[in-house]
């Protein structure tokens, strides 16, 4: 009537069950699929078309055709090739910014949440100062200060995005550090540092990673926004930059802005959806 229900069938494992749920969601498959395809394009595309990003074909502003699938731009460059090279920048900016913001946010949030009250107060006030700063305003000023550049834009977005991760992380760490298994670990003789990084942080990651995927989308949009105000480097192709320069030719060449616009939309949507799905599945409340 009680005890020993041995069973170790695959369907009873929580991890596997989550994976199964993730894979059984068509939205999840679609969004992760899109992300994979995009990453593939970003990695392989520029290799296949190596050297052609600078190629000026003879005719400018040619509409999409069999010759050039997505048409050519105002300088006579192939839009499809530009999009491939642009995907590299846009995804790099998005992913790198999200990764660095998440790493910084995790570190700072973990220290604030796990440290003493005084450490917590100081760290959270500093975070508040960063949050009070208007993000786009600050980004524009910093770009004006340092000049544009992919690395700098990544850095700026990371600087602007870490506070939200840090706050979330802090909350999770505060919650987890009061759980008994942390005390159990302490009684096993683990040091506080070990407990923080091995026992607490890994369990606080799920919501933080979800926010990370949202930052990818925010970063891609912010990069596009900076490009709109001419604050990014024209040296490197990016969707935002294409969109911005394509706007000038809205009437003569709709394909110049419509395709990069769609690309941004689809990418950001895919990352947002993926984040949503992951959050939904890792949220304990969603499991009855």
């Amino acid at each position, binding site marked *: 009537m009680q005890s020993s229900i041995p069973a170790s069938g695959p369907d009873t494992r929580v991890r596997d069950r989550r994976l199964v749920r993730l894979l059984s969601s068509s939205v999840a498959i679609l969004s992760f699929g899109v992300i994979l395809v995009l990453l593939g394009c970003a990695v392989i595309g520029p290799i296949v078309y190596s050297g052609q990003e600078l190629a000026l074909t003879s005719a400018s502003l040619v509409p999409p055709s069999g010759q050039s699938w997505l048409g050519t731009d105002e300088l006579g460059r192939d839009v499809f090739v530009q999009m491939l090279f642009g995907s590299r920048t846009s995804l790099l900016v998005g992913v790198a910014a999200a990764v660095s913001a998440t790493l910084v946010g995790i570190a700072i949030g973990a220290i604030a949440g796990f440290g003493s009250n005084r450490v917590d107060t100081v760290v959270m006030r500093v975070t508040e100062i960063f949050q009070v700063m208007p993000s786009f305003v600050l980004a524009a000023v910093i770009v*004006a200060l340092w000049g544009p550049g992919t690395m700098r834009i990544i850095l700026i977005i990371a600087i602007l995005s870490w506070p939200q991760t840090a706050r979330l992380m802090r909350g999770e760490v505060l919650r987890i550090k009061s759980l008994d298994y942390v005390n159990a670990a302490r009684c096993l003789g683990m040091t506080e540092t070990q407990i923080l990084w091995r026992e607490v942080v890994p369990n606080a990651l799920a919501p933080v990673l979800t926010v990370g995927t949202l930052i990818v989308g925010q970063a891609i949009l912010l990069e596009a926004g900076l490009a709109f105000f001419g604050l990014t480097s024209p040296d490197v192709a990016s969707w935002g930059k294409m969109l911005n320069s394509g706007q000038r030719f809205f009437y*003569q060449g709709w394909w110049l802005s419509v395709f990069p616009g769609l690309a941004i939309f689809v990418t950001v949507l895919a990352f947002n959806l993926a984040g949503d799905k992951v959050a939904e599945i890792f949220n304990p409340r969603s499991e009855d």
Partner: protein
Amino acid sequence: MVFPMLSRIGCALGAGLCLTLPTHAQDGPPVSGGTAIFAVGSDPATINRNISTSTADGLVSCVVYEGLVEVRAGGVIAPLLASEWTVSDDNLVYEFTLRQANWHDGQPFTSADVKYTLEEVSAKFSSTFSITAAVISSIEAPAPDKIVVTLDQPYDPFLMSLNCTQGGAILPKHLFEGTDPATNPVSTQAPVGTGAFRFAEWRRGEYVKFERNPDYWDAGKPYLDGVIAQVLPQSSSRTQALMAGEIDYVASQIMPSSDYRMLADNPNFALIPSPVPSIDVMVVNTTRPGLDDAKVRQALMMATDRDYLLATAYQGAGAAATMPFTNRMPWAADADTDYTKLYPYDPDRAIALLDQAGLMPDADGTRLRVALGYLSDDQDGPLVATAIKSMWSKVGVDVTIAPGERAAMVPKIFVDNDYDLALVSYSSGGDPALGLARMWVSSAAGRCCGNPTGYSNPEVDQLFDQAQQAAGQQARGAIYAKVQHILGRDLPTLTLHERILSSGLTARLKGMEHEYYLPTFREAWLQD
């Protein structure tokens, strides 16, 4: 050619392709009434051209203020506040007869206003007029309607500098005397001029309204009841507002060149080419290793397909440059200096020249690495720079594109000379002495917006001096030809493109053809 979805919008309103300029024959006589709206790129800082050369300030200033003369299309100098003038034989004494006119506040306009303005404001505050002021020895006002200006030396562009655009607008002495013109409310809030329109209302960030001056000296004018300057900071939004019928006029300075073609294709709109010659130039920092060799600069010129730039980056507007100066001043041209013959697009010869200069390809096939800058508010900059990057990659020159904001870039190029190559444009005001010479003379080095190249040639300096003082276009033209001959070989600057800026306007706005650089709307009228 297949017209895509969006460009058909304009055609839906009328026929397909049409001519660039409206033909005057169809226009009836001017009709009175109506309000015209024109675009400005930002809120004006001051409505006083004599203390500011910024575009936004200029676009609204000459609606209110007038100079002694006006420059009409084609560079013709016509009387305005001065009804007539005489010039002494030695070209040193100018005697003007003034019109009967009143200020917008009702006070009479007199020669005292002219003397005060030119001496106390234009000479001291106008960065453009101050060049002219340097050759003025005295200004006398013998009678309320007489003004006499004496020069130290002959100065051919003198008359031209007396128009509003050049900082020669006449201000009311009774409102300015004893104040700081820069902070005087008449400059910063409510201008009082003699022009066809008087100031009515200013909503910061939105618009500046002007209404018809009923007391205007030129009876019957203006035809419009008023003009309004609307603030539209995004260039794309100006065209949209024009196409949506919300505004009537976008001045050439702020009209996006990418939209020329679209307006030209639509009978509801018109384009008026600006009379001011302007050239797009790549300035070269000749103190940088590699770029210090004239052979390298010649090679770069031959690696640049200027016709392709014209067709793509400049959207076919204007012309490819054929000489250091502008093609639109033929009297100053040198028969021997023709870029199409001297430096045709020829990558192979460019490579040969680079070889001669000793710039050999490294492991990557790169012979030279340079940074190419431009001002980030230059619409065509990114296109030109990107195209050049592509072209030069074929001859082993690796270009890093490095744009900068105007406020940051201008000191970097002109004051600190901290750059390799940069795209800038110079406009000349119709005379090489006005606006072009500064590009090459040694004395204009080290400040904005003079000679940033580090190129200093005593012979060139001397020739420019002579040309400015010589009398008559023929004599001056011969000297300028000599200068161009030298500059065309030394190439401290690569002149790429002859820019013809155009104003865009609705077809129903008439009478704008004679406007010079800054609009006055004196003769404008709206067709029903």
